[in-house]
């Protein structure tokens, strides 16, 4: 039954089709793309398509001085930049044999935990927005802004602080800073019950997030999942406790775990970590009131600062998971090779691809956000 000019082609029937989440899509975190092959509303296969944010960081860092790179590293992960500075600085300190003064160590813990708070508040908003709860997004972002103000007070910048330098921190706390930070912390703690009402105990959200993107512990370990995502599967693994750096051994905090391993569990772990961060921050503030001292060790002329040949591997528990730098120095003024082990790559590529198979269109964005991956850090 064909017209004369009918040409047979091999286009398959449209039992499956493709849908593009990103890069220009609100259901995607940053400039990142997911190509989903779907049948009906079920994902048959998902392909993560990164590289949109690739700037060649590791190559750029080889071309810059050790101290110049301080300006570059926070830009690797935009929502949570401080762990980048800390990890890089610690690697340089290990290589260069620098001793960080005690007050500087406490100050670094302060900004690290503040950054974790901002990242988690941002996450609450982001996760809520993927399921249509925009109010929570507005609340989360505006509460985060209070912490950004504290950052500005301390470092002079809202987002990219470049506060941590090899050998210490850039400047000391301005007068009254600790009090105003305490106030903000009280405010954030006071907001948590409201977030509970709106978000964590919301029946619709529980319905949406429970059982979505579930992974078990063995899967998480196989796929290199770290941080809150790993802890949501029940494994109490936290670098701050297990391999303490800075002064984490001297503060009290709990490692939050959940067992379900689904999107809701991941969200709950982050909620718990907000409380723990507040706890740590209060202890740090108390310490800062009493610990005197210099805030950085003396550095040689930065422009001619040569670091002895060798290599260093340092790691930090960032809000996304385990962040590590491997730096090789050949004894020159610039790094010979830098490798960033970002947590997000494991989350946003292989884990996401695996978790989304069999999920629905409705849940792809939610799974992505619940893993809290950071695309610029994936692409670097």
């Amino acid at each position: 039954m064909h017209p004369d000019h009918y040409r047979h082609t091999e286009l398959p029937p449209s039992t499956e089709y493709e849908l593009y989440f990103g890069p220009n899509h609100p259901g995607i975190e940053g400039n990142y793309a997911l190509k989903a092959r779907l049948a009906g509303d079920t994902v048959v296969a998902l392909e993560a398509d990164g590289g949109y944010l690739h700037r060649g960081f590791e190559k750029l860092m080889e071309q810059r001085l050790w101290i110049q790179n301080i300006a570059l590293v926070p830009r690797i992960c935009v929502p949570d930049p401080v762990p980048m500075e800390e990890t890089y600085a610690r690697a340089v300190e290990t290589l260069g044999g620098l001793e960080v003064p005690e007050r500087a160590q406490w100050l670094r813990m302060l900004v690290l935990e503040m950054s974790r708070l901002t990242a988690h508040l941002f996450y609450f908003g982001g996760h809520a927005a993927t399921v249509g709860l925009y109010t929570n997004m507005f609340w989360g972002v505006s509460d985060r802004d209070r912490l950004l103000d504290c950052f500005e007070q301390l470092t002079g910048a809202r987002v990219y602080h470049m506060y941590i330098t090899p050998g210490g921190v850039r400047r000391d706390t301005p007068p009254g800073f600790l009090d105003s930070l305490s106030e903000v912390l009280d405010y954030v703690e006071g907001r948590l019950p409201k977030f509970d009402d709106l978000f964590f105990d919301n029946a619709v959200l529980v319905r949406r997030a429970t059982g979505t993107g579930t992974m078990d512990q063995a899967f998480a370990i196989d796929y290199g999942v770290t941080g809150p995502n790993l802890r949501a599967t029940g494994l109490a693994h936290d670098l701050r406790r297990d391999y303490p750096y800075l002064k984490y051994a001297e503060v009290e905090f709990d490692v939050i775990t959940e067992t379900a391993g689904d999107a809701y569990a991941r969200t709950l772990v982050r909620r718990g970590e907000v409380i723990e961060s507040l706890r740590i921050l209060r202890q740090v503030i108390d310490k800062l009131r009493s610990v005197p001292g210099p805030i950085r060790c003396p550095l040689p002329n930065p422009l001619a600062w040569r670091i002895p040949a060798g290599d260093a591997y340092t790691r930090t528990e960032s809000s996304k998971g385990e962040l590590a730098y491997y730096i090789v120095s050949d004894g020159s003024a610039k790094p010979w090779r830098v490798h960033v082990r970002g947590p997000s790559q494991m989350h946003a590529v292989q884990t996401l691809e695996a978790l989304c198979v069999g999920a629905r269109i409705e849940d792809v964005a939610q799974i992505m956000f619940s893993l809290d991956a950071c695309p610029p850090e994936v692409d670097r």
Partner: protein
Amino acid sequence: MPDYPIYRDPPEQCRTPDAEERSLWGRTLERIADHCRARSLFVLHYCTGCGAIELPPSMTSRFDLERVGMQPMVTPRQADLLLITGYLSVKTLKRVILTYEQMQGPKYVMGFGSCTINGGMYWNSYATVKRLDQYLPVDMYIAGCMPRPEAIQQAFLQLMEKIDSGRAQNWKEYYRRYDHYLGEQQALFGEQFHTPTDVIGEARHYSLFGPETLGEHTAKLAKYDLYHPGQGAVDALEVKR
């Protein structure tokens, strides 16, 4: 016959009648429209680079851009304002060009941060684009890395003023000088580069033809255009046997 227009014949030179030439009624309507456009900017929700991190604070409760009528939109079709929030990698630039072409005029482009102006922090990166206005007509730049919400707001207000007074006409340049922009794009992506959007057809349809709409670069489209098969040799719509 395909049901979309084919532009094989030489272009007639068209131009939009100047504002003075139109009737009073037309000018009044245009004036009201400009005012509305300025007060109702739909922003494309596309986080091209790290500058996007300061957009949520600008948009949400603290600075609340809805006060001045701005709201985020999702697809290029719906949006008026394309925010290039930070550096563009070459891979992103392709998508941005497509996104820009899919937006409907009047459309505005705003470059965020130093990296859209001169490469900024990534001036020596092999992967990023250094100057945005080589590839797209830009209406407003915000310097800084990263620009603060206050700076962003200031820029938006200036852009609004520019729109309100009818001076934000850069989007027409893209049609009038399409050959130039396409040439820059081809220099970066290779001479086979083209988007599914029919810019030349639109220029003809809306009388936005300029002296540089067609030229040596658009001539290459005739060879490679996959989407307007009447024009070129390659027929993308035909599937391999």
